[in-house]
């Protein structure tokens, strides 16, 4: 069953009328058009090559943001998320210190990684093509994300949904090239952002 984020955020009657969804849809669309990222149940995971021989995985522990959908004009929909760079966690305090310093994220200079969408389009089964501006290490570049809806349900505090996206970026494009030239760390970093959002 195709259930777009646009439709989910519209009033139930409008959803049914416009998409002819079956009445037994497991997650009726919420009336609200604003969703907030639940940081406790959201994850940001990165993967980077170490010395050309292994893949290292680490996380950022703090992410926040909002999704706001315009049912009538999807181009006016907005997806924003912010990752706190100081929340980087590589499971080693000394390495975290290095990653937080001027060689890498310089978290005191650049405390956040931000994404702000400029367009949101439905893309296949429960998927969205979200384009926007991605800012990291003080550099802003266009980025296109394939976002997949993981699920949607009525939770104890109201409507909730989950979305996930995977992307690969070259950190040297953002002026963060520590460890690249000597082969210690890969330039390409695979990033997974998985968020749980709550209506309202």
């Amino acid at each position, binding site marked *: 069953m195709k259930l777009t984020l646009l439709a989910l955020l519209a009033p139930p009657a409008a959803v049914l009328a416009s998409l002819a969804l079956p009445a037994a849809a497991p997650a009726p669309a919420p009336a609200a058009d604003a969703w907030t990222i639940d940081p406790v149940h959201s994850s940001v995971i990165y993967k980077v090559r170490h010395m050309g021989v292994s893949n290292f995985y680490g996380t950022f522990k703090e992410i926040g943001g909002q999704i706001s959908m315009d049912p009538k004009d999807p181009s006016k929909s907005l997806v924003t998320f912010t990752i706190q760079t100081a929340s980087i966690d590589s499971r*080693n*305090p000394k390495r975290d210190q290095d990653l937080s*310093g001027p060689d890498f994220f310089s978290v*005191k200079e650049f405390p956040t990684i931000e994404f702000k969408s400029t367009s949101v389009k439905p893309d296949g089964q429960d998927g969205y093509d979200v384009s926007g501006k991605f800012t990291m290490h003080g550099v802003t570049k266009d980025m296109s994300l394939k976002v997949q809806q993981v699920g949607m349900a009525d939770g104890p505090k109201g409507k909730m949904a989950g979305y996930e996206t995977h992307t690969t970026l070259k950190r040297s494009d953002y002026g963060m090239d*520590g460890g690249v030239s000597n082969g210690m760390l890969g330039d390409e970093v695979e990033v997974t952002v998985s968020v749980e959002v709550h209506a309202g």
Partner: protein
Amino acid sequence: MPFTPAQFLLGVVLPALAAALVLLAARRAAGGPGLGAALAVGGGYVLAHLLQRGGRGLPPREATDWAWVAAIAGMLAGASGLTRRRTPLLPLALRLLLSGALLWQLLAAWRTQAEPDEMRSVIAVGAAVLALLWTVVEVGLERPGWFAPALLAVTAAGAAGAIGLSGSFRVALLAGALCAVLCAAAVGSALRLAPPTLEGAAAPAVLALGALLTCAAFYSELPRAAAFLIGGAPVAGLVGDALLGARARRPAVRGGLLLLVAALLGLAVKLAVDASPSFDM
């Protein structure tokens, strides 16, 4: 993060050789006092910075990249001789102005989070300390000989060690490059291959070192006490040298002063080690 031999040759050895050649040429060529030294030390550091990190655009986006701009400003100040005028007001004002402007730029990101009073205090005190260091180093470099440039080289080496232990190998490598350039000046002085006095080197050396220490103290984990100790080390050595007068020329006395400076730098490194997480994996 270790560096490769190519990075070391390009980013450290080559700039030091370039500085040595400039000093050698300056000894033979006519020029104002300090011009050759300013070009050698300032230009050597700028070359090292650009070879290690690239230009990365102007104005610099990252605080660390203000260090090469600071070295250029210092090079111009050192070459112009404006800070060595007999009237005290202009040199003092210029030192304070350049030091304050540098700190203002370096701390742009920190300023957005700091309380206004704290921000004003830090920049005022920092500019005063940097201007004092500049003054003492410049007076020290007006005396012929290897001692003052050697003290500065040792100081830059200590800074590299402390910064490297505080979460930034790349800033440490820049301090290492400054050390190499100052070593070239010290060796050139000792072998009489450089101009007799190197007072023009004070501005680029102090502003570049100040920029690197400020970045490490505010954007990495170098304890501020360690940064002050590193800045204070050459002051202790040079003031001691001036106070002891002719006696300071005895090898034992100079060795003692160098040991004093090394002890202060060692204490700074210990503070950096104590403040840094364990290497244990």
